[in-house]
């Protein structure tokens, strides 16, 4: 696997405010290193679609000219945003507004702010081609095309429009983008306070929007209209370049904001946020180059009029409303059921129905669905979340005005859940005696299918839709019966969990900022990606992969070992599969599984694996003697001495690398199994091999990474003046022969030696070179490789030609140029 290098531009827009014309381009490693620093340039992307519709309705009802009325209403909102943002940014930068911490003082500080002070150190621009900023984030290399783009960007920049009132036009642009650039006076302090700065900015903007205080804003006829839609729902804050608005942290708020990237997908099926923290973290480890390509291609394809961000914003709106609907549905379901049935009654009904043979199949689904949600450690996928939910529900309570609050829903689930477990255990023992009902994939609830399908090998996951069930006659027509009600309540509970995890990005009670364009944001935040040392990085990646896999407990998803296999024998994984000792999903033919394992495991498949089997106590009757996969651990070798690098107990904390100097991985592994609880053993319908595959691929990745030098942070300094110059001189394109020079920050000349001379000369004298001629050394030996010995230089606006001694070989491997002080003085005198 190749490591993709992403060249990125850091702080593109800022360079305009500074007088120099140097542009720093970083590769992805350098970009990640920058992420820990607070941004000094941001975009605020507006989404006025809903406002537009509202204004349109209003225009019709009040007999206004629609086009100009909507345009004027939008213009007011844009002016308000630009003015308030600039005042707040300037106030924060110049200590007129104090930074905000936890206390909610935004309003009183804002109320006291003196507007008469001028705006300082803040630049506001209207951006019509935000893609040109971001398209550079996907540079894989500095080539002619990319340099051409940079040239265009810099030419356009000269025409950029600031945010003065008269520059903000009456038009129907529902998706405006503003670029704010600030200049912090003390870099050290900024590094420390920058994130608090942006957080304060968000809070002040929320407060000021509702109480703008400025006369021109308050007196506008559109003032009241601008308060109908919560402003936080209309704006998204993005950083310009690699630096961050929010401190990258490995927590659901931050991770979910990065997950917004999913909205770039054109595949509606993928428009689903992760369902649990574990899944969220698991996603981080996925190298989603497909997504990256997707974003990159959308941005380059739809470069006109910010088309891609319009599309993104539309998806975001749809996503928001979809999630709020889920929240209200969960609230409605729980509130309604519990207003009609007591827990006791619900349980009585459930017991009756589960024991009724005709419900055997739906009871089976109920138990499967419930079990995956409530498995105890180490099988748990949701346990951490369910615990977190108990302390984290307040975020969504503000939205739930009617019926049960979030914590009451959680309480209700905790009330019904143990009862389901109990009845399902009884049901299991019934099944053990009778025949297991045939389960049909389509009959599982959609959440379950979606969840499981993430870890299935197959791509042919059909519909996630639920088969339309029988008539709903139970509890005011909400469910078919008690089993159905319980299944729906389980599903709603997973929705609620998902909503809590992502509440910040879809509830939008505060301004949302998202690291949309930095593919390493989450990896960096979670410490999986360390940009500084490529070797350390690789090991860390591997460690994190294995550790997190263990931590995530995918062992809940069974790969079985036939217990007839004799314990603690060293054997290759391949052999285990071949001999049928390791069993997979019954739906797949053994060959299919083996094929995909071979692809993913590569030659690791043949590596020897020790099998560890542990006995665990189960309270269930021993009708089944299968063992369930509990984890895999890798052994690393150095030279001939083998050292264990992983722990076997499945917890991440105990995962340690003993040998710091490991140079390679042998690919030896232990595969651990333990006795399966009964129902797990009965699960024939799915086997997510995803875990094993991911683990294997991380071993392979480790091998590939080892020799990769380019993972080190690198940055290049380009001179935008030279790039623009070359672009204009060559009929609006950058020719190939200019690339080596321009990418080294040199001007494009007929050869590298000339470029180097020009740079040196211009830097020393501060004058522009007009013409240059290099003089070769006499080639006595006819080697055709003679060096240049001097340069003849003519300045602009001067007839003098100056001769400067140099040494430069034709490959420009060696270059030396020393200008005599007298000559420099002479040149400066001549050109005064």
């Amino acid at each position, binding site marked *: 696997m190749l490591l993709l290098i992403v060249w990125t531009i850091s702080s593109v827009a800022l360079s305009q405010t500074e007088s120099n014309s140097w542009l720093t381009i970083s590769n992805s490693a350098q970009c990640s290193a920058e992420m820990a620093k607070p941004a000094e340039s941001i975009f605020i992307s507006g989404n006025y679609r*809903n406002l537009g519709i*509202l204004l349109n*309705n209003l225009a019709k009802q009040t007999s206004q000219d629609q086009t100009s009325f909507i345009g004027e209403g939008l213009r007011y909102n844009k002016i308000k945003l630009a003015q308030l943002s600039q005042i707040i940014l300037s106030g924060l930068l110049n200590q007129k507004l104090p930074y905000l911490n936890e206390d909610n003082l935004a309003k009183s500080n804002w109320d006291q702010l003196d507007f008469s002070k001028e705006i300082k150190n803040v630049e506001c621009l209207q951006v019509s081609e935000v893609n040109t900023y971001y398209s550079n984030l996907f540079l894989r290399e500095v080539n002619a095309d990319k340099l051409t783009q940079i040239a265009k960007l810099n030419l356009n920049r000269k025409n950029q429009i600031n945010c003065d009132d008269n520059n903000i036009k009456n038009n129907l642009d529902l998706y405006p983008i503003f670029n704010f650039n600030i200049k912090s006076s003390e870099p050290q302090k900024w590094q420390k306070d920058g994130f608090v700065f942006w957080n304060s900015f968000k809070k002040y903007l929320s407060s000021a929007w509702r109480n703008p205080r400025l006369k021109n804003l308050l007196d506008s*006829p559109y003032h009241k209209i601008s308060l109908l839609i919560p402003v936080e729902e209309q704006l998204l804050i993005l950083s310009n370049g690699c630096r961050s608005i929010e401190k990258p942290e490995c927590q659901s708020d931050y991770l979910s904001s990065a997950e917004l990237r999913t909205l770039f997908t054109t595949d509606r099926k993928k428009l689903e946020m992760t369902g649990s923290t574990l899944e969220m973290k698991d996603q981080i480890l996925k190298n989603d180059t497909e997504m990256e390509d997707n974003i990159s291609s959308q941005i380059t394809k739809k470069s006109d009029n910010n088309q891609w961000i319009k599309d993104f914003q539309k998806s975001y709106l749809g996503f928001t409303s979809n999630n709020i609907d889920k929240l*209200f549905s969960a609230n*409605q379901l729980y509130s309604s059921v519990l207003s009609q049935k007591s827990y006791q009654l619900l349980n009585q009904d459930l017991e009756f129905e589960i024991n009724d043979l005709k419900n055997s199949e739906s009871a089976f689904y109920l138990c499967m669905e419930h079990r995956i949600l409530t498995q105890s450690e180490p099988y748990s996928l949701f346990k951490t979340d369910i615990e977190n939910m108990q302390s984290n529900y307040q975020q969504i309570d503000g939205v739930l005005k*009617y*019926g049960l609050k979030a914590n009451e829903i959680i309480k209700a689930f905790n009330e019904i859940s143990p009862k389901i477990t109990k009845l399902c255990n009884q049901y299991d023992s019934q099944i053990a005696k009778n025949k297991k009902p045939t389960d049909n994939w389509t009959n599982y609830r959609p959440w379950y299918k979606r969840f499981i399908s993430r870890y299935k090998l197959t791509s042919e996951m059909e519909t996630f839709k639920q088969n339309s069930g029988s008539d709903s006659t139970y509890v005011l027509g909400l469910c078919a019966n008690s089993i159905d009600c319980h299944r729906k309540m389980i599903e709603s509970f997973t929705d609620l969990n998902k909503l809590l995890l992502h509440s910040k990005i879809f509830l939008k009670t505060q301004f949302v900022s998202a690291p949309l364009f930095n593919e390493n944001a989450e990896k960096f935040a979670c410490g999986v990606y360390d940009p500084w040392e490529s070797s350390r990085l690789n090991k860390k990646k591997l460690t994190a992969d294995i550790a997190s896999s263990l931590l995530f407990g995918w062992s809940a998803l069974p790969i079985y070992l036939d217990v007839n296999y004799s314990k603690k024998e060293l054997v290759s994984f391949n052999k285990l599969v071949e001999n049928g000792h390791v069993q997979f999903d019954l739906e797949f033919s053994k060959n299919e599984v083996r094929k995909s394992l071979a692809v993913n495991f590569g030659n690791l498949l043949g590596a020897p694996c020790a099998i560890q089997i542990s006995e665990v106590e189960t309270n269930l009757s021993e009708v089944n003697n299968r063992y369930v996969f509990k984890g895999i651990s890798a052994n690393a070798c150095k030279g001939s001495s083998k050292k264990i690098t992983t722990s076997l107990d499945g917890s991440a904390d105990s995962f340690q690398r003993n040998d710091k100097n490991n140079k390679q991985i042998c690919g030896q592994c232990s595969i651990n199994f333990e006795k399966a609880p009964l129902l797990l053993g009965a699960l024939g319908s799915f086997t997510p091999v995803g875990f094993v595959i991911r683990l294997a691929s991380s071993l392979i990745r480790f091998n590939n990474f080892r020799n990769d030098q380019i993972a080190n942070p690198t940055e290049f300094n380009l001179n935008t003046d030279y790039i623009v110059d070359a672009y204009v001189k060559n009929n609006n394109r950058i020719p190939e022969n200019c690339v080596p020079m321009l990418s080294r920050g040199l001007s494009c000349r007929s050869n590298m030696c000339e470029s180097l001379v020009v740079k040196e000369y211009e830097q020393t004298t501060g004058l522009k070179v007009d013409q240059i001629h290099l003089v070769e050394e006499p080639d006595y030996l006819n080697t055709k490789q003679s060096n240049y010995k001097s340069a003849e230089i003519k300045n602009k606006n001067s007839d003098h030609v100056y001769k400067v001694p140099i040494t430069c070989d034709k490959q420009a491997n060696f270059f030396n140029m020393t200008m005599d002080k007298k000559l420099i003085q002479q040149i400066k005198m001549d050109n005064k």
Partner: protein
Amino acid sequence: MKILILIILSCLSQNLLASKMYSSVHFNSETGISKNLIIECNQDESLCQKTCDNKLKCIVAESLCMDCASEKSHEMNSIYAHPADEYFQSTKTNVSDDIFSYFLRNKKIMTISNDLFINYYSPELSTEISVIFNNICGNNSNNNMMVAEINENSNNIESLPGIICIDSDKNAQIQALIFNPKYSLQKNEFWQALSSESEVALKRMGLRLRLSNKLSLP
């Protein structure tokens, strides 16, 4: 107290409050947007008199809800985003003109019609929404409106306590509304509480009146 409740919950067939009631929205390039509830009364109807001290016509300034044009507004979302009968139910009890006029005079209110301009969710569904309003009122008028109480301080929607049902002759009645009938606990609570509140206010006013009468005595 009992008598008062009887008044509020009087039977459906009587108690037409006004001969005409509608909401009107205006936009003025100087003063901006204004929304008013306009009530016209016949000689024998007292709502106009009680609300505005005018026998025949009354204009009540409505408030505009803040932050309510949002998916997060449970009320707006239920009315416009996925209009459905199941979210609403009329109690089939009328609100008396005393209580309603007290409501109009003392609370910030906003009427919500099937084609309210705030509906960005589904402006194309105004006919469907009107059918739902008709179903709640049990009439066929297309002019029915819900009425929301707006929070005094935050200007958010506080509750959705009633529906103004306007029959084919444009006569208006106010029916107490249950929002989320499948689990809502509030039946007539809102109007009962308002009735007690007005009673207290009346008493206080009476007391003040008597006091001032006393004081003004020579």
